[in-house]
């Protein structure tokens, strides 16, 4: 009794997660394929019921885009280059945002996902401060849709009210469905490619790949090993679950 308790204490005193992740959902984004077309941005907006905030709020940086394209110029005319990089929640394994939440509104689940539980959120917004990628978006207002645009809203995703933080979930509703299907189907594991977030699904250049990096055969695991692979702001040691493949040169 006592010894098991002590063992438990010891086990839980080690940094890290559970025993291991059931799945470790990971995304790779090949910047050599990415053209910055923003199909992913709209796909996310459609899938996850992101609000239409309006020009005035946009002008004050109150937009909500769970995935956004960042643009970086390099050089000056005429030798000027543009680099696009889609930035979404990196689902860091060592996520600074999770630690700071006083009410466990964000935590790491068994799928290696950095989850955001809207119901628990009290809106301290500290997670957005702690996030170096600035991918957490706050509901400054309760947003409404001009009738009948609300008919488009995805019933699998909740609509958030004012005062709640939100962010990319790797389309957790799709993961849930895939896992349910796999469970119904003789309790097998989710197959590679069976679940794709909306952004990955839409990408015309197939720049994004999503899968379970616990599975060495998964496409995402292979992509991660690409020599061009890197993680954004790797030096901060947040161990993101999004691996970027650097743009190649001619």
């Amino acid at each position, binding site marked *: 009794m006592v010894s098991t308790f002590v063992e438990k204490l010891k086990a839980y005193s080690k940094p890290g997660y559970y025993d291991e992740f059931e799945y470790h959902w990971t995304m790779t984004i090949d910047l050599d394929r990415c053209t910055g077309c923003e199909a992913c941005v709209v796909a996310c907006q459609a899938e996850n019921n992101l609000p239409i905030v309006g020009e005035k709020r946009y002008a004050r940086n109150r937009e909500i885009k769970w995935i956004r394209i*960042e643009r*970086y110029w390099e050089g000056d005319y005429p030798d000027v280059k543009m680099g696009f990089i889609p930035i979404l929640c990196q689902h860091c394994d060592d996520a600074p945002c999770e630690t700071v939440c006083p009410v466990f509104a964000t935590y790491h689940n068994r799928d290696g996902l950095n989850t955001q539980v809207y*119901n628990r959120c009290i*809106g301290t*917004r500290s997670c957005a401060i702690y996030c170096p990628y600035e991918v957490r978006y*706050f509901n*400054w207002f309760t947003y409404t849709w001009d009738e009948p645009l609300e008919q488009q809203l995805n019933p699998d995703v909740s609509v958030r009210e004012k*005062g709640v933080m939100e962010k990319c979930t790797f389309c957790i509703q799709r993961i849930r469905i895939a896992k349910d299907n796999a469970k119904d189907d003789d309790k097998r594991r989710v197959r590679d490619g069976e679940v794709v977030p909306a952004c990955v699904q839409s990408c015309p250049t197939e720049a994004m790949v999503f899968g379970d990096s616990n599975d060495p055969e998964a496409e995402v695991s292979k992509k991660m090993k690409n020599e061009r692979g890197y993680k954004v*702001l790797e030096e901060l040691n947040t161990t993101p679950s999004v691996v970027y493949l650097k743009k190649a040169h001619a």
Partner: protein
Amino acid sequence: MFDHGQPSYADVNKDVLSTMLETGPRYWILLGTTMSIAVICFFMPWLYQLFVGIGAAGMNRNAVWGTYISNFIFWIGLSHSGTLLSAVLHITNSHWRKSIYRSAEAMTLFSLMTAALFIMVHVGRVWFVHWTFPIPNPMGLWPNFRSPLMFDVMAITTYLTASSIFIYMGSVPDFAAVRDASTGLRRRLYTIFSFGWRGTAREWHTLGWAYTFFAVFVIPLAVSVHSIVSWDFALSIVPGLHHTIFAPYFVCGAIYSGTAGIVTVMYCLRKFLGFEKYIGQVHLDNLGKLLIALSLIWSYINILELFSTWYGGTSFELEALKFRLTGFYAPLYWEMITFCAFVPLLIFFKKIRWSWNKMLVVSILINIGMLTERFIIVATSLPRKFLPDAFGFYLPSWVEISITIGSFAIFATLFLIFIKWVPAVSLYEVKETLKPLRRNT
């Protein structure tokens, strides 16, 4: 210690209690004004914000914290001198503490309450703020004790509790004096407030011991509170905030602004309640010296921060520093440096140090500087973190500015109520400093 000759024990009771028991129209006008300002500038905009959403404030995607947090830190900082100074001076047996500590502690309490109000104003869903306490809630989930914000919750709760107890227990004998000097309902109320204090040797003895223990607990507590507040920032990895020096920096800054706050409050007590007899040159002189010391420490830490950023040489930190020193908010930064690092040097001159009017100006300038400092920390660092394309900008909205102004009115209101309910100067401790009542001296 007494500029105008020794008062008698009875004089002390009369002088102090009269400020409580005799209320002129000026008081009511003042109270009415501050209360109206509090309602109009603080509570009504807050109500509007509750209705609309936090978007009523100027915060945005890049700057999700704004003046609410910087004001929170400011008020927490202002709270720092009262109780801490009182406790330290109690333990070290400094007699000059005795006539000022009650008001100083009240300042602690009320600025802490104002600070706590700012947390309420800040959070997105204030109606769920109790979820941060380890009490049962509909989520069936207790808070995350690994969170720096939980440190805050615990620290501020403890600080508020401890400060309240500290000031209350120190006032119990004085409540008894009020009881004895009054009649009717007030007498009944103060009978309850004073626990039936008679001033027996045993009571004094127990109170003395308890009070010393309160002081002993409060000192590390006060230091921890502002350290913890600083960790809200320093434990993040935001460039410009992620500094190990932050805890001492905040604590020092807190005591600094708190001490300046005491000077301001003492000035008002002297001016409006006629406490010239009890709050005199020695207090001003001592507080002035303290201010100089704190200002020098504060300047040193600022220089250190610049140096370590420069020496560290990472792009993130250098960019943040560059923006702070030369960006949009640079005028505010240099204003802060002027008010908090250079202006206090004037206190070296006796001419300044010994003049209440001049010290009032200096102390107000210091607190303006400290208010700016908190604002700069928030407004220049948060919108410019790691990804340049996500750089943004923060400008407070009218709601935030109004609420900031309103918070001073709330503080003033609380203080005005306080002086009518609690003797603003400790009766028995002032008496202790007087010539003992002995037949044979």
